[in-house]
């Protein structure tokens, strides 16, 4: 929508292009271990951006996005099994993605209609419960094979190692998430959602179609998350209920966004990078302390920098500008 955001500057375009070139070049210079880390940052950064499509604009903070992550993975796994081995792997992945998106779309609409009527913590907990139910159901009913899981075929592209291939797939996924977020933020939908986030009743009174907007954001966010679940499972080569319906995935998406800055594009990705590097490299040998550190970071961020690192930097910059303006006026 015009009038709300400054146009993207040539400096921002340039920086983005530079980052992209760097990201494309990385797999040809980095070690497999470094690439696996980068993979995770791309995937979970992308998922955190997808979570922000709803949670970043509004206070509808889903504590159960693992539901869609798992739903997508299971949809693709079940379809892959039906298709049988004669279908090429790449085609299976594409069909699996499409099927996962369709199933998640339907499920997200069905869940959203009651759940989006709840506000604040009630929404958060309802989503948490929804994710738990899906996880339990997938394990309980034999048709879903949640407890045993599926083995997924190995995707091969000549000239690329597996780790490189999935690096590029995750990179594309992240870029799609970023693209959607940026387009959405600048659209009527994004402005309407921002208003819903600040005061839903007033937004409705001013003519913002709140129900439709919330539903749209929720569904897009859910479908992207499902895509992430499918790609993740293919990168592992197998899946069970315990690899995808993970409460820690739901909560990490919030944590990453919180660390970087909720409602920004770069924030969730920066947050994912910091937390993944912190737990896997800095504390790589101290597995025992991961939860302790994660918890401490979460508490510290909420208490000291609720707008995340990006918010912190912005506030500091604004304060500096204000003081220079005052000094200028005084002299």
């Amino acid at each position: 929508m015009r009038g709300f955001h400054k146009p993207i500057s040539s400096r921002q375009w340039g920086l983005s292009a530079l980052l992209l070139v760097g990201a494309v070049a990385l797999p040809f210079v980095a070690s497999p271990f470094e690439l696996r880390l980068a993979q995770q940052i791309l995937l979970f950064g992308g998922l955190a951006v997808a979570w922000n499509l709803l949670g970043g604009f509004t206070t509808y903070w889903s504590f159960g996005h693992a539901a869609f992550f798992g739903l997508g993975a299971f949809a693709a796994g079940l379809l892959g099994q039906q298709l049988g081995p004669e279908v090429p792997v790449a085609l299976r992945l594409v069909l699996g993605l499409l099927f996962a998106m369709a199933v998640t779309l339907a499920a997200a609409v069905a869940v959203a209609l009651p759940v989006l009527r709840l506000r604040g913590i009630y929404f958060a907990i309802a989503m948490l419960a929804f994710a738990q139910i899906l996880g339990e159901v997938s394990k309980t009913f034999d048709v879903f094979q949640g407890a045993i899981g599926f083995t997924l075929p190995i995707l091969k592209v000549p000239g690329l190692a597996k780790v490189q291939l999935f690096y590029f797939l995750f990179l594309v996924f992240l870029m799609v998430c970023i693209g959607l977020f940026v387009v959405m933020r600048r659209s009527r939908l994004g402005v309407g959602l921002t208003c819903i986030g600040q005061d839903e009743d007033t937004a409705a009174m001013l003519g913002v179609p709140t129900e439709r907007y919330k539903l749209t954001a929720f569904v897009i966010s859910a479908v992207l998350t499902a895509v992430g679940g499918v790609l993740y499972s293919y990168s592992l080569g197998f899946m069970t209920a315990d690899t995808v319906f993970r409460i820690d995935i739901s909560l990490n998406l919030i944590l990453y966004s919180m660390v970087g800055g909720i409602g920004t594009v770069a924030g969730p990705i920066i947050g994912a990078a910091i937390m993944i590097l912190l737990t896997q490299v800095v504390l790589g040998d101290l597995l025992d302390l991961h939860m302790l550190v994660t918890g401490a970071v979460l508490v510290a961020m909420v208490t000291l920098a609720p707008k995340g690192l990006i918010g912190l930097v912005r506030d500091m910059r604004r304060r500096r500008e204000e003081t220079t303006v005052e000094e200028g006026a005084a002299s």
Partner: protein
Amino acid sequence: MTGTLFLQTLVDGLILGGIFSLSAVGFSLIFGVLGVVNLSHGIFVLLGAYLGLALKEAWGIDPLMAIPLVFGALFVLGGLVQITLVSGAVRRGSLMSSLLITFGVSLMLRDLIILVFGPDVQSLSSSWLFDTFRIGGVIVDGARASGLIASLLSLGLLSYVLYRSKVGRAMRATAQQDFAAGLCGIDVKKIYAMTFGVSAGFAGVSGIIVGLINPFTPFDDTHWTLNAFVTVVLGGVGSPVGALLGGLMLGGISTFSSQYVGSLYPNVFIFGALLLMLIVRPNGLLGNAYKGSV
């Protein structure tokens, strides 16, 4: 036989429900008085169980005798958590912040439990509790019976404190209107800390009872937090009676669905009930004990 089975299921449900009630009452109190959903509640329950274990192994104190000690220890811990970490979020009036902070606290405490006690399954069995007795075909074992009795006694005690003592009156006043309560000379900060302390204390006591009946691991806290939430959503916010009602319903849903539908289903039913209640009547059957229904 079906009659006996039904009766046995009902009795099991009631016993389980009594424990659910006790484990949820503190959660309910914090929710009612501070308006905070305490995601570290489950870890307080587990801490109770692990403290009981430590006391038993170090000095051979019987878990049931350890209840006052555990209550005291968790009272202090809960109060400290509120004063140091949660109070900031409450002051800013941000429910989401309090949710995230208490979640962070639960991660830290869980890690500490693992560091001290290890990640394996533990239990608090006490030999004299294994005697079983029958009442007209229904089997009850000592652990469960004493668990139920301790739960009911604790809930009664809490009701008495809330509705008959000065501190309880201050808590209820603060729950209704914290600002006005402050104007009437109530030290709201102290009441918040006390509420957190009492709540954590009761969680710890319920942890001992849970530990007597079931084995436990450091990863059970999510289960207990969610159970507490379901109990509150079923019964109502803030009152021991609401917690009792919600807990009994939850116990009933749990035992009946596993008896008659399948042992793997209780959680599906429990969370299904939660979703249904959230949508139909989010403040529980009895509503919020302190505030009008929203």
